[in-house]
């Protein structure tokens, strides 16, 4: 096992005229640039324009100033941002630890039924949002009696409340539904990372008497730290772009009273419009740009600070 503190410094042998780098990069670069980046630039540049008398006019940063100075717009923006932070924190505190724990248990060697568990736990992640929205609304509905009935069996009926309909509990409830749906992602990624650890390493640890829990904490966890980094950053990016689940469970208005509105729903409502509200491309693009900058800041922090400091092991 060799250790490379920084992959960029530990690069392999250099050669002249390395055309293969170009060949390796070209297909991804071209498709990605043509179909994703250029259309997105085309859209994001609208944040610098606005409609005046039916004409598109260059307005510089005026849209951004409006977004942060207009009392109503800025209030919805900060509301969405803070809800989004709560949404993210719940995922980090529940989804990722649960995902890691499940992966750790699944990777115990010679565990029977592991394939079954792994598949079953991943099924929610494969479901369409339409089903997830329908079934959880049905389960949590005060009317059709699934959740109240089940809580009654265990004597907890008194604790039932129409969670999705109350401003103080809706966000947490939707976050937990999202956790339920997506726990398969960190589970699978960590599982892959754990399987990637060579048996020799674990055998050596066992010879030293490190087994069970302490083996997980002392040997496996440091080795999968880069993967935990990846799931954290993916959770961050995914949560700050999230939209569909809130949209199907709580509607585009993300009620009650905007309490489940996150940046994604705010963006879609503004950009594409909703019901009688017309889409506002310029303001939508402005919000998208701000979201992009927030996410970029997070990802850059990860790429330039955390990832570079992370100890990475090669097998």
């Amino acid at each position, binding site marked *: 096992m060799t250790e490379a503190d920084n992959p960029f410094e530990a690069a392999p042998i250099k050669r002249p005229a390395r055309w293969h780098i170009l060949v390796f990069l070209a297909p991804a670069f071209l498709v990605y640039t043509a179909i994703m980046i250029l*259309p997105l630039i*085309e859209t994001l540049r609208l944040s610098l324009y606005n409609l005046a008398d039916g004409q598109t006019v260059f307005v510089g940063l005026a849209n951004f100033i409006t977004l942060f100075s207009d009392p109503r717009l800025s209030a919805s923006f900060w509301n969405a941002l803070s809800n989004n932070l709560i949404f993210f924190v719940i995922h980090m505190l529940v989804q990722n630890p649960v995902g890691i724990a499940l992966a750790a*248990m699944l990777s115990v060697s010679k565990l029977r*039924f592991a394939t079954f568990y792994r598949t079953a736990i991943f099924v929610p992640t*494969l479901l369409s949002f339409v089903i997830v929205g329908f079934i959880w609304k049905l389960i949590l509905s005060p009317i059709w009696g699934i959740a109240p009935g089940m809580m009654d069996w265990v004597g907890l009926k008194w604790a039932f409340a129409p969670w999705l309909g109350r401003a103080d509990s809706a966000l947490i409830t939707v976050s937990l539904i999202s956790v339920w749906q997506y726990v398969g992602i960190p589970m699978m990624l960590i599982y892959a990372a754990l399987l990637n650890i060579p048996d020799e390493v674990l055998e050596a640890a066992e010879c030293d008497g490190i087994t069970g829990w302490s083996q997980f904490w002392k040997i496996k966890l440091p080795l999968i730290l880069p993967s935990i980094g990846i799931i954290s950053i993916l959770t961050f990016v995914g949560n700050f772009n999230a939209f569909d689940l809130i949209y199907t469970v709580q509607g585009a208005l993300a009620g009650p009273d905007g309490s489940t509105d996150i940046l994604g729903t705010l963006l879609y409502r503004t950009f594409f419009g909703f019901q009688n509200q017309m889409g506002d491309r310029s303001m939508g693009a402005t919000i998208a740009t701000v979201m992009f900058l927030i996410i970029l800041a997070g990802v850059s922090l990860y790429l330039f600070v955390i990832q570079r400091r992370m100890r990475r092991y090669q097998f």
Partner: protein
Amino acid sequence: MATARTSYLRTGLIHLALISYTLIALFPVFLTLVNSFKTRNAIFREPMAIPTPSTFSLVGYETVLKQGDFIGYFQNSLIVTVVSIALVLLFGAMAAFALSEYRFRGNLLMGLYLALGIMIPIRLGTVAILQGMVAAGLVNTLTALVLVYTAQGLPLAIFILSEFMRTVSDDLKNAGRIDGLSEYAIFFRLVLPLVRPAMATVAVFTMIPIWNDLWFPLILVPGEATKTVTLGAQMFIGQFVTNWNAVLSALSLAILPVLVLYVIFSRQLIRGITSGAVK
């Protein structure tokens, strides 16, 4: 003896925890399936009940099979998903290899550039994408969807794969170089087999949003011949009345193909390890 007992206990606890979580994961799915076999009234009268002879009904499945060509929709979805996954894996792994293996000017910038795509929802670029597809004559072809999904899947694939490729031993690659292998051979013959678990992971992550996407099929390929399953199922979601029998049936059926793909891919996790051990 004592250790054996604790290990039994430990395994028992692990099973208990996994079974509990499996129940949490599957209970809503089970409810969906159960209710897809019931009449509308029975769904809401007693959502928890198992279908009885009086409430059992295949009306949802019948509606689905009658309305539109669902077999064709499944075929379209499968083609689009499988081809997109293949392209994402191939192009993504190549780019990830270039980024993680070689030190060149702009490496980090290129990495960041290729990651930008996970930070903005591609849906915002809809109008420009549609205009481009119109110009290229690709509207109402599955190619249009494949291109969009490939572009959409690449950033995440590159991001994950380059992280995993950094864990592939330099000694191994350098040994290959000394043996006179070309860079392409090193990539395809040495590195790819070693990152198979990561490739499988990426395949699964790529497949989910593609399979369940409604927006791009709606915009790019609304034609009858190119409809996907998700687009086909949305016709049962009305303005005021949603045919839940049909929606639940269509979407329950729609789980099966992705579930099969998932099982296929997740087996690669194990295979990757066994082949890795041979090195």
